[in-house]
Protein backbone atom coordinates (compact mmCIF):
# COMPACT_ATOMS: atom_id res chain seq x y z
CA UNK A 1 0.00 0.00 0.00
CA UNK A 2 1.32 3.37 -0.93
CA UNK A 3 -0.43 5.74 1.46
CA UNK A 4 0.98 5.26 4.93
CA UNK A 5 -1.86 7.21 6.47
CA UNK A 6 -4.60 5.24 4.70
CA UNK A 7 -6.99 3.42 6.98
CA UNK A 8 -8.68 0.17 6.20
CA UNK A 9 -12.35 -0.37 6.90
CA UNK A 10 -14.60 -3.39 6.63
CA UNK A 11 -17.30 -3.60 3.95
CA UNK A 12 -19.80 -6.46 3.85
CA UNK A 13 -20.78 -8.02 0.54
CA UNK A 14 -24.15 -9.79 0.78
CA UNK A 15 -24.81 -12.34 -1.96
CA UNK A 16 -28.42 -11.94 -3.17
CA UNK A 17 -28.39 -14.13 -6.30
CA UNK A 18 -25.54 -16.67 -6.51
CA UNK A 19 -25.46 -17.57 -10.23
CA UNK A 20 -24.85 -21.21 -11.22
CA UNK A 21 -21.41 -21.40 -9.72
CA UNK A 22 -19.67 -18.47 -8.11
CA UNK A 23 -16.41 -19.07 -6.28
CA UNK A 24 -13.75 -17.07 -4.51
CA UNK A 25 -10.71 -17.42 -6.75
CA UNK A 26 -7.19 -16.23 -7.31
CA UNK A 27 -4.44 -17.20 -9.73
CA UNK A 28 -3.86 -20.55 -8.00
CA UNK A 29 -1.39 -22.26 -5.65
CA UNK A 30 2.34 -21.87 -6.13
CA UNK A 31 4.64 -24.81 -5.61
CA UNK A 32 1.77 -27.17 -4.71
CA UNK A 33 2.07 -29.55 -7.66
CA UNK A 34 5.16 -31.16 -6.17
CA UNK A 35 2.79 -32.16 -3.32
CA UNK A 36 0.20 -33.60 -5.69
CA UNK A 37 -2.16 -30.62 -5.44
CA UNK A 38 -3.08 -29.00 -8.76
CA UNK A 39 -2.38 -25.28 -8.96
CA UNK A 40 -6.04 -24.53 -9.72
CA UNK A 41 -7.10 -20.89 -9.90
CA UNK A 42 -9.07 -18.72 -12.33
CA UNK A 43 -9.79 -20.44 -15.63
CA UNK A 44 -9.34 -17.13 -17.47
CA UNK A 45 -6.18 -15.84 -15.82
CA UNK A 46 -5.91 -12.83 -18.11
CA UNK A 47 -9.35 -11.47 -17.19
CA UNK A 48 -8.77 -12.19 -13.50
CA UNK A 49 -5.50 -10.27 -13.51
CA UNK A 50 -6.97 -7.31 -15.39
CA UNK A 51 -9.97 -7.11 -13.02
CA UNK A 52 -7.61 -6.86 -10.05
CA UNK A 53 -5.25 -4.38 -11.72
CA UNK A 54 -8.17 -2.10 -12.69
CA UNK A 55 -9.14 -1.66 -9.04
CA UNK A 56 -5.58 -1.10 -7.84
CA UNK A 57 -5.04 -4.59 -6.39
CA UNK A 58 -2.16 -6.96 -6.90
CA UNK A 59 -2.88 -9.45 -9.68
CA UNK A 60 -2.90 -12.34 -7.22
CA UNK A 61 -5.62 -10.85 -4.98
CA UNK A 62 -8.76 -12.91 -4.27
CA UNK A 63 -11.76 -12.06 -6.48
CA UNK A 64 -15.00 -13.68 -7.61
CA UNK A 65 -15.30 -16.04 -10.57
CA UNK A 66 -18.92 -16.05 -11.74
CA UNK A 67 -20.44 -18.65 -14.06
CA UNK A 68 -23.82 -18.42 -15.65
CA UNK A 69 -27.17 -16.70 -15.48
CA UNK A 70 -27.32 -13.89 -12.96
CA UNK A 71 -25.24 -12.93 -9.95
CA UNK A 72 -25.91 -10.02 -7.62
CA UNK A 73 -24.34 -8.69 -4.46
CA UNK A 74 -25.23 -5.79 -2.16
CA UNK A 75 -22.44 -3.67 -0.69
CA UNK A 76 -22.67 -2.18 2.81
CA UNK A 77 -20.35 0.74 1.98
CA UNK A 78 -18.89 2.38 -1.11
CA UNK A 79 -16.61 0.15 -3.17
CA UNK A 80 -14.41 0.42 -6.23
CA UNK A 81 -14.95 -2.64 -8.44
CA UNK A 82 -14.36 -3.97 -11.92
CA UNK A 83 -15.92 -6.73 -14.03
CA UNK A 84 -13.98 -8.48 -16.80
CA UNK A 85 -14.25 -11.79 -18.66
CA UNK A 86 -17.17 -12.68 -20.90
CA UNK A 87 -19.27 -9.87 -22.36
CA UNK A 88 -22.23 -9.51 -20.00
CA UNK A 89 -24.68 -7.02 -18.61
CA UNK A 90 -23.33 -5.26 -15.51
CA UNK A 91 -25.59 -3.02 -13.43
CA UNK A 92 -25.20 -0.88 -10.34
CA UNK A 93 -28.78 -0.89 -9.10
CA UNK A 94 -30.59 -0.29 -12.41
CA UNK A 95 -27.81 1.67 -14.04
CA UNK A 96 -25.77 -0.17 -16.72
CA UNK A 97 -21.99 0.24 -16.37
CA UNK A 98 -19.02 -0.78 -18.51
CA UNK A 99 -16.91 -3.89 -18.16
CA UNK A 100 -13.08 -3.63 -18.17
CA UNK A 101 -13.13 -0.38 -16.18
CA UNK A 102 -12.90 0.68 -12.56
CA UNK A 103 -16.44 1.51 -11.38
CA UNK A 104 -17.75 3.04 -8.17
CA UNK A 105 -20.80 1.72 -6.29
CA UNK A 106 -22.27 3.60 -3.31
CA UNK A 107 -23.23 2.17 0.07
CA UNK A 108 -26.31 -0.04 -0.16
CA UNK A 109 -26.22 -0.45 -3.92
CA UNK A 110 -26.59 -3.79 -5.71
CA UNK A 111 -24.05 -4.91 -8.30
CA UNK A 112 -25.51 -7.34 -10.84
CA UNK A 113 -23.63 -9.40 -13.44
CA UNK A 114 -26.05 -11.09 -15.85
CA UNK A 115 -26.69 -12.49 -19.33
CA UNK A 116 -23.19 -13.58 -20.34
CA UNK A 117 -22.72 -13.69 -24.11
CA UNK A 118 -20.13 -15.59 -26.16
CA UNK A 119 -18.06 -16.56 -23.12
CA UNK A 120 -18.57 -18.41 -19.84
CA UNK A 121 -16.98 -16.69 -16.86
CA UNK A 122 -17.06 -13.20 -15.36
CA UNK A 123 -14.51 -11.85 -12.90
CA UNK A 124 -15.55 -9.36 -10.23
CA UNK A 125 -12.76 -7.68 -8.30
CA UNK A 126 -13.05 -5.13 -5.49
CA UNK A 127 -10.37 -2.74 -4.33
CA UNK A 128 -9.03 -4.26 -1.11
CA UNK A 129 -8.74 -7.70 0.41
CA UNK A 130 -11.61 -10.21 0.28
CA UNK A 131 -11.87 -12.24 3.45
CA UNK A 132 -11.41 -15.97 2.80
CA UNK A 133 -9.83 -19.10 4.13
CA UNK A 134 -6.76 -20.38 2.33
CA UNK A 135 -5.46 -23.82 1.47
CA UNK A 136 -1.72 -24.08 0.80
CA UNK A 137 -1.52 -20.31 0.57
CA UNK A 138 -4.30 -19.77 -1.96
CA UNK A 139 -8.04 -19.11 -1.87
CA UNK A 140 -8.59 -21.10 -5.11
CA UNK A 141 -11.16 -23.90 -4.75
CA UNK A 142 -10.18 -27.56 -4.70
CA UNK A 143 -13.54 -29.27 -4.37
CA UNK A 144 -12.13 -32.80 -4.39
CA UNK A 145 -10.07 -32.03 -1.30
CA UNK A 146 -13.00 -30.40 0.47
CA UNK A 147 -12.29 -26.72 -0.29
CA UNK A 148 -15.26 -25.66 -2.46
CA UNK A 149 -15.18 -21.85 -1.94
CA UNK A 150 -18.63 -21.60 -3.48
CA UNK A 151 -20.89 -18.63 -2.66
CA UNK A 152 -24.61 -19.17 -2.09
CA UNK A 153 -27.55 -16.83 -1.64
CA UNK A 154 -27.40 -15.29 1.83
CA UNK A 155 -23.62 -15.62 2.19
CA UNK A 156 -21.69 -12.59 3.39
CA UNK A 157 -18.11 -11.90 2.41
CA UNK A 158 -15.97 -9.34 4.22
CA UNK A 159 -13.90 -6.85 2.26
CA UNK A 160 -11.14 -4.79 3.88
CA UNK A 161 -10.57 -1.71 1.76
CA UNK A 162 -8.90 1.66 2.05
CA UNK A 163 -11.19 3.05 -0.60
CA UNK A 164 -13.40 5.89 0.54
CA UNK A 165 -16.04 7.55 -1.53
CA UNK A 166 -15.13 10.79 -3.16
CA UNK A 167 -16.14 10.49 -6.81
CA UNK A 168 -19.36 10.84 -8.71
CA UNK A 169 -21.62 7.79 -8.87
CA UNK A 170 -20.67 4.87 -11.14
CA UNK A 171 -18.06 6.33 -13.44
CA UNK A 172 -14.48 6.86 -12.50
CA UNK A 173 -13.78 5.58 -16.01
CA UNK A 174 -13.88 9.02 -17.56
CA UNK A 175 -10.87 10.01 -15.47
CA UNK A 176 -8.57 7.44 -16.94
CA UNK A 177 -7.34 6.29 -20.26
CA UNK A 178 -6.16 2.80 -19.45
CA UNK A 179 -4.68 0.48 -22.10
CA UNK A 180 -6.85 -2.61 -21.72
CA UNK A 181 -6.79 -5.10 -24.60
CA UNK A 182 -10.24 -6.70 -24.40
CA UNK A 183 -10.37 -10.26 -25.78
CA UNK A 184 -12.70 -10.57 -28.76
CA UNK A 185 -15.00 -13.54 -28.13
CA UNK A 186 -17.43 -12.79 -30.97
CA UNK A 187 -15.93 -15.04 -33.68
CA UNK A 188 -18.25 -17.95 -34.58
CA UNK A 189 -15.32 -20.39 -34.40
CA UNK A 190 -12.40 -19.74 -32.05
CA UNK A 191 -8.91 -20.67 -33.22
CA UNK A 192 -6.69 -22.13 -30.51
CA UNK A 193 -2.92 -22.03 -31.08
CA UNK A 194 -1.29 -25.35 -30.29
CA UNK A 195 2.24 -26.80 -30.32
CA UNK A 196 3.32 -30.43 -30.83
CA UNK A 197 2.93 -32.89 -27.95
CA UNK A 198 5.01 -36.01 -27.22
CA UNK A 199 2.62 -38.33 -29.13
CA UNK A 200 1.71 -36.03 -32.04
CA UNK A 201 3.79 -38.03 -34.51
CA UNK A 202 2.41 -41.34 -33.18
CA UNK A 203 -1.11 -40.45 -34.34
CA UNK A 204 -1.07 -40.40 -38.11
CA UNK A 205 -2.58 -37.27 -39.65
CA UNK A 206 -3.74 -35.75 -36.35
CA UNK A 207 -2.19 -32.33 -37.09
CA UNK A 208 -4.04 -31.97 -40.39
CA UNK A 209 -7.24 -33.34 -38.87
CA UNK A 210 -7.27 -30.92 -35.94
CA UNK A 211 -6.41 -27.92 -38.14
CA UNK A 212 -9.15 -28.69 -40.66
CA UNK A 213 -11.95 -29.75 -38.29
CA UNK A 214 -14.38 -27.87 -36.09
CA UNK A 215 -14.91 -29.19 -32.54
CA UNK A 216 -17.77 -28.52 -30.14
CA UNK A 217 -17.25 -27.96 -26.41
CA UNK A 218 -19.18 -30.56 -24.41
CA UNK A 219 -21.23 -29.88 -21.30
CA UNK A 220 -19.04 -32.04 -19.03
CA UNK A 221 -16.21 -29.51 -19.36
CA UNK A 222 -14.81 -28.06 -16.13
CA UNK A 223 -11.57 -26.89 -14.48
CA UNK A 224 -10.07 -30.34 -15.07
CA UNK A 225 -10.57 -30.23 -18.80
CA UNK A 226 -12.44 -28.80 -21.77
CA UNK A 227 -14.02 -31.75 -23.61
CA UNK A 228 -14.31 -31.41 -27.37
CA UNK A 229 -16.58 -33.48 -29.56
CA UNK A 230 -15.42 -33.91 -33.16
CA UNK A 231 -13.23 -36.08 -35.37
CA UNK A 232 -10.28 -37.79 -33.66
CA UNK A 233 -7.84 -40.59 -34.47
CA UNK A 234 -6.38 -43.06 -32.07
CA UNK A 235 -2.71 -44.07 -31.99
CA UNK A 236 -1.63 -47.30 -33.65
CA UNK A 237 0.69 -49.65 -31.82
CA UNK A 238 1.63 -47.19 -29.12
CA UNK A 239 3.15 -49.00 -26.13
CA UNK A 240 2.02 -48.49 -22.55
CA UNK A 241 2.30 -44.86 -21.42
CA UNK A 242 3.27 -44.75 -17.74
CA UNK A 243 1.26 -42.12 -15.79
CA UNK A 244 3.08 -38.82 -15.90
CA UNK A 245 2.64 -35.12 -15.21
CA UNK A 246 1.12 -32.99 -17.95
CA UNK A 247 1.16 -29.23 -18.51
CA UNK A 248 -2.02 -27.15 -18.42
CA UNK A 249 -3.30 -27.05 -22.01
CA UNK A 250 -2.20 -30.59 -22.90
CA UNK A 251 -4.53 -32.03 -25.57
CA UNK A 252 -5.15 -35.71 -24.88
CA UNK A 253 -7.12 -38.37 -26.73
CA UNK A 254 -8.95 -40.66 -24.30
CA UNK A 255 -10.35 -44.03 -25.38
CA UNK A 256 -13.62 -42.33 -26.38
CA UNK A 257 -13.96 -40.22 -29.52
CA UNK A 258 -13.17 -36.79 -28.13
CA UNK A 259 -10.30 -34.46 -27.34
CA UNK A 260 -9.69 -33.18 -23.81
CA UNK A 261 -7.72 -29.98 -23.28
CA UNK A 262 -6.53 -30.27 -19.69
CA UNK A 263 -7.19 -27.37 -17.36
CA UNK A 264 -5.75 -25.99 -14.16
CA UNK A 265 -7.23 -28.70 -11.87
CA UNK A 266 -5.75 -31.64 -13.85
CA UNK A 267 -3.64 -34.32 -12.17
CA UNK A 268 -1.36 -37.02 -13.62
CA UNK A 269 -2.61 -38.37 -16.93
CA UNK A 270 -3.83 -41.96 -16.94
CA UNK A 271 -1.68 -42.97 -19.85
CA UNK A 272 -3.53 -41.33 -22.76
CA UNK A 273 -1.56 -39.96 -25.72
CA UNK A 274 -0.93 -36.19 -25.70
CA UNK A 275 -1.16 -34.95 -29.29
CA UNK A 276 -0.65 -31.23 -28.66
CA UNK A 277 -0.30 -28.50 -26.05
CA UNK A 278 -2.37 -25.31 -26.25
CA UNK A 279 -0.26 -22.16 -26.28
CA UNK A 280 -0.03 -20.44 -22.87
CA UNK A 281 -1.40 -17.30 -24.51
CA UNK A 282 -4.55 -19.24 -25.55
CA UNK A 283 -5.37 -20.71 -22.13
CA UNK A 284 -7.38 -17.70 -20.94
CA UNK A 285 -9.58 -17.92 -24.05
CA UNK A 286 -10.17 -21.63 -23.32
CA UNK A 287 -11.33 -20.59 -19.86
CA UNK A 288 -14.21 -18.81 -21.62
CA UNK A 289 -15.24 -21.81 -23.74
CA UNK A 290 -18.88 -22.56 -22.90
CA UNK A 291 -20.72 -25.75 -23.90
CA UNK A 292 -21.63 -25.53 -27.59
CA UNK A 293 -18.67 -23.28 -28.40
CA UNK A 294 -17.00 -24.14 -31.76
CA UNK A 295 -13.22 -24.48 -31.77
CA UNK A 296 -10.52 -25.24 -34.33
CA UNK A 297 -6.73 -25.39 -34.05
CA UNK A 298 -3.71 -23.65 -35.56
CA UNK A 299 -0.28 -25.30 -35.21
CA UNK A 300 2.58 -23.02 -34.21
CA UNK A 301 6.15 -23.64 -33.07
CA UNK A 302 7.21 -23.23 -29.42
CA UNK A 303 9.17 -20.03 -30.16
CA UNK A 304 6.10 -18.33 -31.60
CA UNK A 305 4.03 -19.61 -28.71
CA UNK A 306 6.41 -18.09 -26.16
CA UNK A 307 6.43 -14.78 -28.09
CA UNK A 308 2.61 -14.59 -27.95
CA UNK A 309 2.63 -15.27 -24.22
CA UNK A 310 5.26 -12.61 -23.57
CA UNK A 311 3.20 -10.12 -25.56
CA UNK A 312 0.23 -10.80 -23.27
CA UNK A 313 2.40 -10.40 -20.19
CA UNK A 314 3.84 -7.13 -21.51
CA UNK A 315 0.35 -5.64 -21.82
CA UNK A 316 -0.42 -6.61 -18.25
CA UNK A 317 2.73 -4.89 -17.03
CA UNK A 318 1.87 -1.78 -19.02
CA UNK A 319 -1.63 -1.72 -17.57
CA UNK A 320 -0.23 -2.20 -14.09
CA UNK A 321 2.15 0.74 -14.49
CA UNK A 322 -0.57 3.01 -15.87
CA UNK A 323 -3.01 2.13 -13.10
CA UNK A 324 -0.33 2.90 -10.54
CA UNK A 325 0.39 6.34 -11.95
CA UNK A 326 -3.28 7.19 -12.32
CA UNK A 327 -4.32 5.90 -8.90
CA UNK A 328 -1.43 7.60 -7.14
CA UNK A 329 -2.17 10.87 -8.89
CA UNK A 330 -5.83 10.63 -7.86
CA UNK A 331 -5.06 9.53 -4.30
CA UNK A 332 -6.77 6.18 -4.79
CA UNK A 333 -5.46 3.19 -2.81
CA UNK A 334 -3.19 0.97 -4.91
CA UNK A 335 -1.08 -2.06 -4.07
CA UNK A 336 1.80 -3.86 -5.69
CA UNK A 337 5.18 -2.86 -7.04
CA UNK A 338 5.31 -0.27 -9.77
CA UNK A 339 7.32 -1.48 -12.73
CA UNK A 340 8.35 0.16 -15.94
CA UNK A 341 6.77 -1.33 -19.03
CA UNK A 342 6.81 -0.72 -22.72
CA UNK A 343 4.07 -1.68 -25.13
CA UNK A 344 5.25 -4.01 -27.86
CA UNK A 345 2.69 -3.18 -30.55
CA UNK A 346 -0.88 -4.34 -30.79
CA UNK A 347 -1.90 -7.30 -28.65
CA UNK A 348 -2.75 -10.26 -30.89
CA UNK A 349 -6.34 -11.37 -30.95
CA UNK A 350 -7.46 -8.36 -28.99
CA UNK A 351 -8.54 -4.85 -29.70
CA UNK A 352 -7.23 -2.07 -27.50
CA UNK A 353 -9.94 -0.17 -25.70
CA UNK A 354 -9.57 2.95 -23.68
CA UNK A 355 -11.44 2.75 -20.44
Amino acid at each position, binding site marked *: MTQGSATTHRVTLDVLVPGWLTTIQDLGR*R*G*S*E*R*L*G*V*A*TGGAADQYSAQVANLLVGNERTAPLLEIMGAEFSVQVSAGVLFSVTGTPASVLVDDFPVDLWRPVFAAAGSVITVATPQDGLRSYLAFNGALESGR*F*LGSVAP*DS*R*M*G*FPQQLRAGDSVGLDTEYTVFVQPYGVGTWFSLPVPVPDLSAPVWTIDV*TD*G*PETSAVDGIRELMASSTYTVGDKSDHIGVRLGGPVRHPQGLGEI*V*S*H*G*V*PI*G*AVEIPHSDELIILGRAR*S*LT*AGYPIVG*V*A*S*SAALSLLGQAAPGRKITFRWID*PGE*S*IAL*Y*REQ*RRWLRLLEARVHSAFEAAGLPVRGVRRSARPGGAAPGARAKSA
Partner: protein
Amino acid sequence: MESTTVLESGVSLRIQPFGDSALMLDVLAEDRLVRQEATVRVRSSILLEVPFGVLDVVAGFESLLVEFDADRVEHEGVDQAVRLAVSLGFARSADATASGRVLEVPTLFGGEFGPDLEEVAAELDLTAAEVVDRFVDRPLTISLLGAAMAPMMHGVDLPADVSRTALPRTRVEGGSVMLAGSNAIISPFPGPTGWRVIGRTPLTICDIEHDPVVSYAPGDVLRFRAIERVEFESLAGAFLSSATALS
Protein backbone atom coordinates in the same frame (compact mmCIF):
# COMPACT_ATOMS: atom_id res chain seq x y z
CA MET B 1 15.81 -29.30 -28.40
CA GLU B 2 16.44 -32.64 -26.78
CA SER B 3 19.28 -33.66 -24.49
CA THR B 4 20.35 -36.93 -22.94
CA THR B 5 22.70 -37.06 -19.95
CA VAL B 6 24.24 -40.14 -18.34
CA LEU B 7 23.45 -40.19 -14.60
CA GLU B 8 25.42 -43.31 -13.78
CA SER B 9 26.26 -46.57 -15.49
CA GLY B 10 23.20 -47.73 -17.44
CA VAL B 11 21.00 -44.85 -16.31
CA SER B 12 20.41 -41.68 -18.29
CA LEU B 13 18.10 -38.67 -18.28
CA ARG B 14 16.34 -37.52 -21.46
CA ILE B 15 14.97 -33.95 -21.49
CA GLN B 16 12.45 -32.75 -24.08
CA PRO B 17 10.19 -29.70 -24.43
CA PHE B 18 6.54 -30.24 -23.47
CA GLY B 19 4.56 -27.24 -24.72
CA ASP B 20 5.87 -23.68 -24.38
CA SER B 21 6.32 -23.71 -20.58
CA ALA B 22 7.53 -27.15 -19.52
CA LEU B 23 10.18 -29.80 -19.96
CA MET B 24 9.58 -33.54 -19.75
CA LEU B 25 12.33 -35.50 -18.01
CA ASP B 26 12.37 -39.24 -18.65
CA VAL B 27 14.71 -41.56 -16.79
CA LEU B 28 15.98 -44.28 -19.13
CA ALA B 29 17.28 -47.64 -17.86
CA GLU B 30 16.67 -51.32 -18.61
CA ASP B 31 15.21 -52.17 -15.22
CA ARG B 32 11.97 -50.56 -14.04
CA LEU B 33 12.96 -50.44 -10.39
CA VAL B 34 16.19 -48.66 -11.36
CA ARG B 35 14.19 -46.13 -13.41
CA GLN B 36 11.75 -45.50 -10.56
CA GLU B 37 14.41 -45.04 -7.92
CA ALA B 38 16.51 -42.79 -10.13
CA THR B 39 13.40 -40.67 -10.81
CA VAL B 40 12.97 -40.07 -7.07
CA ARG B 41 16.60 -38.98 -6.85
CA VAL B 42 16.34 -36.65 -9.87
CA ARG B 43 13.28 -35.07 -8.30
CA SER B 44 15.01 -34.37 -5.01
CA SER B 45 18.11 -33.05 -6.80
CA ILE B 46 15.98 -30.44 -8.58
CA LEU B 47 13.95 -29.52 -5.49
CA LEU B 48 17.15 -29.15 -3.47
CA GLU B 49 17.81 -25.92 -5.35
CA VAL B 50 14.98 -25.03 -7.71
CA PRO B 51 16.46 -23.34 -10.82
CA PHE B 52 15.51 -19.73 -11.61
CA GLY B 53 12.19 -19.46 -13.45
CA VAL B 54 11.06 -22.98 -12.51
CA LEU B 55 7.55 -22.84 -11.00
CA ASP B 56 6.96 -26.45 -10.02
CA VAL B 57 7.90 -30.08 -10.54
CA VAL B 58 5.24 -32.75 -11.13
CA ALA B 59 6.47 -36.25 -10.39
CA GLY B 60 5.47 -39.39 -12.28
CA PHE B 61 6.86 -42.86 -11.47
CA GLU B 62 9.43 -42.73 -14.25
CA SER B 63 9.34 -39.10 -15.33
CA LEU B 64 9.18 -35.52 -14.11
CA LEU B 65 7.43 -32.51 -15.57
CA VAL B 66 9.34 -29.30 -14.91
CA GLU B 67 7.06 -26.26 -15.31
CA PHE B 68 8.60 -22.84 -15.85
CA ASP B 69 7.60 -19.21 -16.39
CA ALA B 70 8.03 -18.67 -20.14
CA ASP B 71 8.01 -14.92 -19.55
CA ARG B 72 11.38 -15.22 -17.80
CA VAL B 73 13.14 -18.31 -19.14
CA GLU B 74 13.04 -20.69 -22.11
CA HIS B 75 13.51 -24.40 -22.70
CA GLU B 76 17.26 -24.25 -23.39
CA GLY B 77 18.11 -22.34 -20.22
CA VAL B 78 15.95 -24.53 -17.99
CA ASP B 79 17.37 -27.67 -19.63
CA GLN B 80 20.88 -26.52 -18.77
CA ALA B 81 19.96 -25.51 -15.21
CA VAL B 82 18.21 -28.83 -14.62
CA ARG B 83 21.20 -30.83 -15.90
CA LEU B 84 23.46 -28.80 -13.62
CA ALA B 85 21.22 -29.39 -10.59
CA VAL B 86 21.01 -33.11 -11.32
CA SER B 87 24.74 -33.52 -11.91
CA LEU B 88 25.45 -31.81 -8.59
CA GLY B 89 22.67 -33.46 -6.61
CA PHE B 90 22.19 -36.96 -8.01
CA ALA B 91 25.04 -38.70 -6.21
CA ARG B 92 24.18 -36.99 -2.92
CA SER B 93 20.47 -37.80 -3.27
CA ALA B 94 21.05 -41.56 -2.95
CA ASP B 95 20.90 -41.24 0.84
CA ALA B 96 18.91 -38.03 1.09
CA THR B 97 15.73 -39.45 -0.44
CA ALA B 98 15.05 -41.80 2.49
CA SER B 99 13.65 -39.93 5.49
CA GLY B 100 13.93 -42.81 7.96
CA ARG B 101 10.33 -42.22 9.07
CA VAL B 102 7.99 -45.20 9.18
CA LEU B 103 4.19 -44.87 9.37
CA GLU B 104 1.94 -47.84 10.01
CA VAL B 105 -1.24 -48.15 7.95
CA PRO B 106 -3.80 -50.55 9.48
CA THR B 107 -5.80 -51.99 6.58
CA LEU B 108 -8.82 -54.27 6.25
CA PHE B 109 -8.21 -56.41 3.15
CA GLY B 110 -10.75 -58.07 0.85
CA GLY B 111 -14.51 -58.29 1.10
CA GLU B 112 -16.53 -55.16 0.50
CA PHE B 113 -13.49 -53.01 1.38
CA GLY B 114 -11.21 -54.77 -1.10
CA PRO B 115 -13.53 -55.88 -3.92
CA ASP B 116 -10.67 -56.66 -6.36
CA LEU B 117 -8.54 -58.78 -4.00
CA GLU B 118 -9.83 -62.19 -5.16
CA GLU B 119 -9.51 -61.30 -8.84
CA VAL B 120 -6.02 -59.88 -8.38
CA ALA B 121 -5.00 -63.07 -6.56
CA ALA B 122 -6.43 -65.26 -9.34
CA GLU B 123 -4.62 -63.17 -11.95
CA LEU B 124 -1.32 -63.72 -10.08
CA ASP B 125 -2.02 -67.41 -9.42
CA LEU B 126 -1.92 -66.81 -5.66
CA THR B 127 -4.49 -67.07 -2.88
CA ALA B 128 -5.96 -63.85 -1.46
CA ALA B 129 -4.12 -64.52 1.82
CA GLU B 130 -0.81 -64.87 -0.05
CA VAL B 131 -1.32 -61.54 -1.81
CA VAL B 132 -2.01 -59.83 1.54
CA ASP B 133 1.00 -61.52 3.20
CA ARG B 134 3.37 -60.46 0.44
CA PHE B 135 1.92 -56.94 0.43
CA VAL B 136 2.27 -56.35 4.19
CA ASP B 137 5.70 -58.04 4.41
CA ARG B 138 7.39 -55.42 2.25
CA PRO B 139 7.38 -51.86 3.70
CA LEU B 140 6.91 -49.43 0.82
CA THR B 141 8.70 -46.12 0.35
CA ILE B 142 6.56 -43.22 -0.87
CA SER B 143 8.04 -42.17 -4.20
CA LEU B 144 5.64 -39.32 -4.96
CA LEU B 145 2.36 -37.69 -4.04
CA GLY B 146 -0.29 -38.09 -6.75
CA ALA B 147 -3.67 -36.43 -7.20
CA ALA B 148 -5.01 -34.82 -4.01
CA MET B 149 -1.79 -35.71 -2.13
CA ALA B 150 -2.28 -39.48 -2.57
CA PRO B 151 0.84 -41.37 -1.41
CA MET B 152 2.16 -43.43 -4.34
CA MET B 153 4.65 -46.24 -3.83
CA HIS B 154 6.62 -48.43 -6.22
CA GLY B 155 8.22 -51.84 -5.79
CA VAL B 156 5.31 -53.95 -4.53
CA ASP B 157 6.55 -57.55 -4.08
CA LEU B 158 4.26 -59.57 -6.34
CA PRO B 159 5.21 -62.14 -8.99
CA ALA B 160 3.73 -60.15 -11.89
CA ASP B 161 2.17 -56.79 -12.73
CA VAL B 162 -1.38 -56.12 -11.61
CA SER B 163 -3.61 -54.95 -14.47
CA ARG B 164 -5.93 -51.98 -14.24
CA THR B 165 -9.70 -52.41 -14.29
CA ALA B 166 -11.12 -52.66 -17.81
CA LEU B 167 -13.57 -49.86 -17.03
CA PRO B 168 -12.65 -47.27 -14.38
CA ARG B 169 -14.80 -47.32 -11.24
CA THR B 170 -16.74 -44.08 -10.92
CA ARG B 171 -16.25 -43.97 -7.15
CA VAL B 172 -14.04 -45.64 -4.58
CA GLU B 173 -14.03 -44.57 -0.93
CA GLY B 174 -11.33 -42.50 0.71
CA GLY B 175 -8.71 -44.73 2.33
CA SER B 176 -8.86 -47.36 -0.42
CA VAL B 177 -5.58 -49.26 -0.79
CA MET B 178 -5.02 -49.98 -4.46
CA LEU B 179 -2.60 -51.67 -6.87
CA ALA B 180 -1.64 -51.27 -10.53
CA GLY B 181 1.50 -52.60 -12.21
CA SER B 182 4.00 -52.96 -9.37
CA ASN B 183 2.75 -49.77 -7.72
CA ALA B 184 0.48 -49.02 -4.77
CA ILE B 185 -1.57 -45.98 -3.81
CA ILE B 186 -3.95 -44.91 -1.04
CA SER B 187 -6.83 -42.71 -2.23
CA PRO B 188 -7.19 -39.86 0.28
CA PHE B 189 -10.67 -38.88 -0.94
CA PRO B 190 -13.55 -40.58 -2.74
CA GLY B 191 -13.23 -40.47 -6.50
CA PRO B 192 -13.03 -42.41 -9.77
CA THR B 193 -10.10 -44.76 -10.43
CA GLY B 194 -8.83 -47.50 -12.71
CA TRP B 195 -6.60 -48.97 -9.93
CA ARG B 196 -7.54 -52.33 -8.34
CA VAL B 197 -8.89 -51.99 -4.80
CA ILE B 198 -7.55 -54.66 -2.40
CA GLY B 199 -8.39 -53.08 0.97
CA ARG B 200 -9.18 -49.96 2.94
CA THR B 201 -7.61 -48.20 5.88
CA PRO B 202 -10.01 -46.73 8.47
CA LEU B 203 -7.59 -43.83 9.00
CA THR B 204 -8.07 -40.40 7.49
CA ILE B 205 -4.83 -39.86 5.63
CA CYS B 206 -5.43 -36.30 4.37
CA ASP B 207 -7.57 -33.53 5.88
CA ILE B 208 -7.25 -29.91 4.81
CA GLU B 209 -8.56 -28.82 8.22
CA HIS B 210 -5.75 -30.74 9.92
CA ASP B 211 -2.33 -29.25 10.58
CA PRO B 212 -0.35 -30.63 8.85
CA VAL B 213 -2.70 -31.65 6.04
CA VAL B 214 -0.84 -34.96 5.70
CA SER B 215 1.85 -36.50 7.93
CA TYR B 216 3.74 -38.25 5.15
CA ALA B 217 6.12 -37.10 2.45
CA PRO B 218 8.11 -38.72 -0.36
CA GLY B 219 10.90 -40.76 1.23
CA ASP B 220 8.78 -41.92 4.18
CA VAL B 221 8.02 -45.63 4.53
CA LEU B 222 4.50 -47.01 4.88
CA ARG B 223 4.13 -50.35 6.66
CA PHE B 224 0.73 -51.93 6.05
CA ARG B 225 -0.79 -54.09 8.79
CA ALA B 226 -3.78 -56.40 8.22
CA ILE B 227 -6.64 -55.75 10.66
CA GLU B 228 -10.10 -57.19 11.33
CA ARG B 229 -13.47 -55.49 11.29
CA VAL B 230 -13.52 -54.71 15.02
CA GLU B 231 -10.26 -52.78 14.87
CA PHE B 232 -11.40 -51.06 11.67
CA GLU B 233 -14.46 -49.72 13.50
CA SER B 234 -12.45 -48.57 16.51
CA LEU B 235 -9.90 -46.70 14.36
CA ALA B 236 -12.41 -45.17 11.95
CA GLY B 237 -11.70 -41.51 11.27
CA ALA B 238 -8.45 -41.29 13.27
CA PHE B 239 -5.76 -39.26 11.50
CA LEU B 240 -2.74 -41.11 10.11
CA SER B 241 0.33 -39.72 11.87
CA SER B 242 3.58 -40.94 13.34
CA ALA B 243 1.69 -41.45 16.62
CA THR B 244 -0.57 -44.05 15.01
CA ALA B 245 2.61 -45.67 13.71
CA LEU B 246 3.51 -46.72 17.24
CA SER B 247 0.25 -48.49 17.97
